[in-house]
């Protein structure tokens, strides 16, 4: 069990964003996190990686209690994350962006070896040609790949992907899904938030569904898609789920 989330509660003033979220994530699995907009998925990520410490509950990573640790400590422990709205380091080049991931992630590379790691990672996501360009000059799809590259450069044990497929066309989606599967095959555990249903259903081993900050379902893609609560909260039309899975 690489990650254990235990009864996490997160409040923002009067709003209860997460209520008693609890799940275990075995090593090497791809766990999909889905739910309607505003369900608290990104908030859960923020609670896990220390951006917003939870009001109560615990987050245990590789046996160590990381609840409420600052984000840089969590990153050093081997958790890397991408953001839903990309956050490139604008005035730095693509190479430098990825190097930051390598330098300050789990392995703490020196600048020289970080450059080598970065080269390898950029190759994987297909950004080598743009290594010397400023991050601000990339288009959205490339910036998404940069987010992914930065996270990969940290050689994390656990990768948190926040809507990494949003805004991509089907070909691009297939390419990223391929990369994700290969990352998993190398031993990285993946927790991914997604709205692109087909994609997350096809790549995930298991799914968790959040609605209004509460877990309403958990299971294989098949189980979750057929869960009436999920359908009601999310899809509205039960038949739609069948049609999606059939495709």
């Amino acid at each position, binding site marked *: 069990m690489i990650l254990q989330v235990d009864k996490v509660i997160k409040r923002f003033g009067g709003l209860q964003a997460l209520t008693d979220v609890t799940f275990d994530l075995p090593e090497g699995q791809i766990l999909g996190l889905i739910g309607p907009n505003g369900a608290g998925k990104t908030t859960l990520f923020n609670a896990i*990686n220390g*951006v917003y410490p939870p009001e109560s509950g615990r987050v245990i990573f590789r046996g160590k209690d990381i609840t409420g640790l*600052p*984000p*840089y400590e969590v*990153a*050093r422990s081997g958790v*890397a*994350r991408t*953001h839903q709205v990309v*956050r*490139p*380091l*604008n*005035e*730095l080049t693509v190479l*430098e962006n990825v*190097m*930051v*991931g390598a*330098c*300050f*992630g*789990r392995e*703490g*590379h*020196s*600048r020289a070896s*970080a450059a080598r790691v970065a080269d390898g990672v950029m190759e994987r996501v297909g950004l080598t040609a743009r290594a*010397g360009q400023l991050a601000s000059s990339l288009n959205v799809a490339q910036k998404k790949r940069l987010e992914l590259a*930065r996270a990969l450069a*940290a050689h994390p044990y656990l990768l948190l992907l926040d809507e990494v497929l949003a805004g991509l066309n089907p070909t691009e989606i297939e390419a990223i899904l391929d990369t994700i599967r290969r990352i998993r095959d190398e031993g990285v555990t993946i927790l991914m938030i997604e709205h692109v249903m087909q994609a997350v259903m096809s790549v995930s081993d298991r799914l968790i569904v959040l609605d209004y900050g509460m877990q309403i379902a958990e299971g294989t893609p098949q189980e979750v898609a057929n869960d009436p609560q999920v359908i009601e909260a999310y899809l509205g039309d039960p038949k739609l789920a069948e049609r999606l899975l059939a495709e």
Partner: protein
Amino acid sequence: MNAWRQPGFWLTFLLVLVGGGAALVTRDSTLRELVFTLLMFVALSSSLNIMLGYTGYVNFGHIVFFGLGGYAGFYLISQHGWPLYTAALVGGCVSALIAALLGAAILRLRGAYFALATIGINEAARAFVINFGPFGGPTGMFINFSAYQAYGGAMQALWTTYTLLLVVTLAVVVTSYMVKHSRFGLGLMGIREDEDAAMVMGVKAPNFKNIAYIISAFFPGIIGTLFFFKNGNVEPGDAFRLHMSIEMLVMVMLGGNGTVLGPVLGAVGYERLRGFLLTSPLFKNLHLAFAGLALLLIVLFVPAGVVGWLRSRFPALRKVLV
């Protein structure tokens, strides 16, 4: 560090070395006086750049490190007869210590709030010094002319101080280059671009900011001591001239925020412009207004400064214009 192989490093380093060394070679006093001011501002701007350019934190009170560190160093020379070299170093350490303490309080503040806090520092520092007996209160301190005998007479003392300043300036430039190209510098620039995202990637922002602040404070403390030693006295009005803080900002922005060469060019360029304006009867009183206009135009139209603009316009020059 393969700094020694980079053309960019040599360009900046040699610029300062040759520019500064010229006076030493020719033994020309007028040149020395002129270049002393230039070197001072080159060093001050370059040290400011570490916080402003690399870390992205606007420090309106940079002059405080010059003033307080200089006061401390001068105090040791004037009241306790310390030699210049050690006193200057202690002055630098005092500034660094102040930065460490101050930083612990105000570096938690982000962006604009931090800038506001630094504005108040200057006033607070001056008020403190005015009230602080050992530092001579409102009248400050002075050195007896005879003290210069220990350095081979007043003339020789001026040359020694100049040489020391040149060495310090070169040290600042080297430090600036090394920071920029180090893992530490990469972290700083990550903080500058997006502090939260940088932290998520593992950059220990609070520590890095503190270290950057301390480094940027150290050199001004040494320089302050040298400056006051050369003048023979120090008073609260001299040590905390807000104008100097402002002008340093303009120099960094003008030359190129976040580059090694930028503050050097900006300092020299601005100082020459200021000198020209001051001697011209028409502009004499307006040099502050012109500085303001220059800053506004830079911020509105060329925020990356001269070097920054050149780098974006001519990517091939990036190796050289660091």
